[in-house]
């Protein structure tokens, strides 16, 4: 795969967490490219570095050595402001625990990234309604997170992640807090997003969810140990 085609690319990325008892090595010399439209699943035991890699891809964290190139930008060479702007406009995050803001309605949660990106009012309002409709929650926009089920909250979180039309959707165990049936709903939604051309990198322990990805990387002790294609 050519680097120019990659939405995000890790180049010999290593991540160490400094601890009083000595550095903890989360990732070691990871090189990996995710092409536009790709659907990649990261699997492996807890603590193998999956979420760390996701954070590096999303410019939430920086590698200790090596580099992450997101949409052609070396995240390590950017200041905090530029990295934040990159997250706002190019990356969508979906978390295991949804992380919706509890004081906002579902509609307002979806609206939030567009407000920050200063999208024109009419456009952002139409987009928020469109996204809630896309995830099947058009009639729940006025509800607060506390009034929604786990699956509904995760669908709102996916709608929020898509708000600014990101090139890359990062999902960290999106079905981890959900029962099997609800997890299937989210899995189908992600598959639909992939089919619509969204680039997805997914961390999961769920083999069924990973199976719908085109590529699956298995990590162990901070290294890629296996790559499979479906």
């Amino acid at each position, binding site marked *: 795969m050519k680097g120019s085609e990659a939405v995000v690319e890790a180049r010999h990325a290593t991540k160490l967490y400094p601890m009083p008892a000595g550095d903890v090595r989360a990732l070691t010399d990871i090189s990996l490219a995710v092409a536009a439209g790709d659907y990649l699943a990261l699997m492996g035991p807890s603590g193998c570095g999956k*979420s760390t890699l996701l954070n590096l891809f999303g410019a939430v964290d920086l590698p200790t050595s090596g580099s992450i190139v997101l949409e052609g930008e070396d995240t390590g060479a950017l200041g*905090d402001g530029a990295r*934040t*702007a990159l997250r*706002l406009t190019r990356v969508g*995050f979906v978390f295991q625990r949804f992380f919706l803001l*509890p004081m906002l309605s579902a509609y307002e949660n979806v609206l939030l990234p567009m407000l920050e990106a200063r999208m024109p009012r009419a456009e952002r309002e139409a987009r928020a309604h469109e996204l809630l409709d896309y995830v099947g929650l058009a009639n729940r926009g006025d509800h607060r997170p506390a009034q929604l089920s786990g699956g509904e909250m995760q669908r709102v979180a996916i709608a929020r992640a898509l708000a600014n039309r990101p090139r890359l959707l990062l999902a960290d165990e999106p079905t981890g807090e959900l029962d099997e049936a609800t997890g299937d709903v989210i899995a189908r939604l992600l598959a639909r997003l992939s089919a619509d051309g969204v680039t997805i990198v997914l961390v999961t322990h769920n083999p069924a969810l990973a199976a719908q990805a085109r590529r699956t990387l298995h990590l162990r002790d901070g290294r890629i140990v296996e790559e499979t294609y479906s």
Partner: protein
Amino acid sequence: MIAFLARRNLVRQRARTLLCVLGLAVSTALLYDMALLSSGLKASLTRVLDAIGYDLRVLPSGGLPFSSDAVLPGGHALAAELAALPGVAEAEPLWATTLYLEPRAAAAAAAPRRAVSAFALGLAPERQTMYRIERGAGIPPGATGSPAASGVTPVVLNALAAQALGAAPGDTLLVSATLDAVSGGALRPERLRVAGIGEFRFDMRTQRSLSLRPGDLARIAGRGDDPASFLLGKLAPGGSARTVAARWAALHPETEFHEVSEMLAQVRGQLSYFQQFSLILGTVSLLVTFLLVLTLQTLAVNERQGEIAILRALGLRAPRVVGLVLIEGFALAALALGPGILLGAVAARGLDAILTSSPGLPVGLSFFVFTPGALVRTVGLVLVTATLAGAYPAWLAARTNVALTLHREVT
């Protein structure tokens, strides 16, 4: 957007926000009261002196602040001399002494007579600014020194004197400068007619006062030397008090010459302990404001680390997170301003009533006086202090480690 989020955050924690606003309102009330107190007496004194409208004061040597025993003989001639100096617009003599009064009916009654003493001011009615008529009429201008054509001399009483004498406008009183030790009444009294009841600007709270034409007062007191306790002068536009003082000192070295503004400055200096008192308590109230906002916002930021990490992950820049926390502190203070100022105004009214009931204070003086400056200072200080108090929690919020916090929130 951050204002919208700040509002939602404050509404979400209604009880906490309400308690914090109440606490801030109390400290704001204290600060407002201290702002009123620090400038209150000064403003009040200035207001009274401005109402009287004189810039210069000439007294017998050693007569400050006031002595009814020390007099300047030939008061009108001296006043004319002062008024003739370059830079002086006009001048008036003022003489004050004690008179004894009793109701006219009491002198004829069989009951024991008891005259009432009162502080009498000799003032030209057409130019006086020392009292304001509240009921009845003022003293008509006219010749003085001999009884009026009707044989009855007009007088203006203050409310306390009128109350003590049971007098109302139109009533007749008996007056003398001497008390009859045998009868307890006024000795060889002259008749006065109450023209009106007025509020006298420098009255003490328990003081009975009256005003007569200067000539009437001198006649009743049996003084033919036209005495003056002091002279009051107004500067002409562009007139220099220093120049007038130098000229007057050369002419009358036996007198003291004072600028009212200088005397005011001296009084202000003597009242500086009120300013120190209000400065200390005002600082304490600001400290309370600071600590309240600092504590609440630090707790809120620590509780909301996860939310802050989410906002940062979603693309909210660090300065925006700082702004969010600062706006919340500012909003808490802004919400407290209304009830705080109201509470302060009510407390100031009560405190002023207590303090001004002290004996020996002129009626027109107040300790807590509203000035736009006091209000602006209070509002500005509270808002700035609360915003600054948000700086530390805002810094905490800005340095949130997004990846680590998100990891902690999950595990």
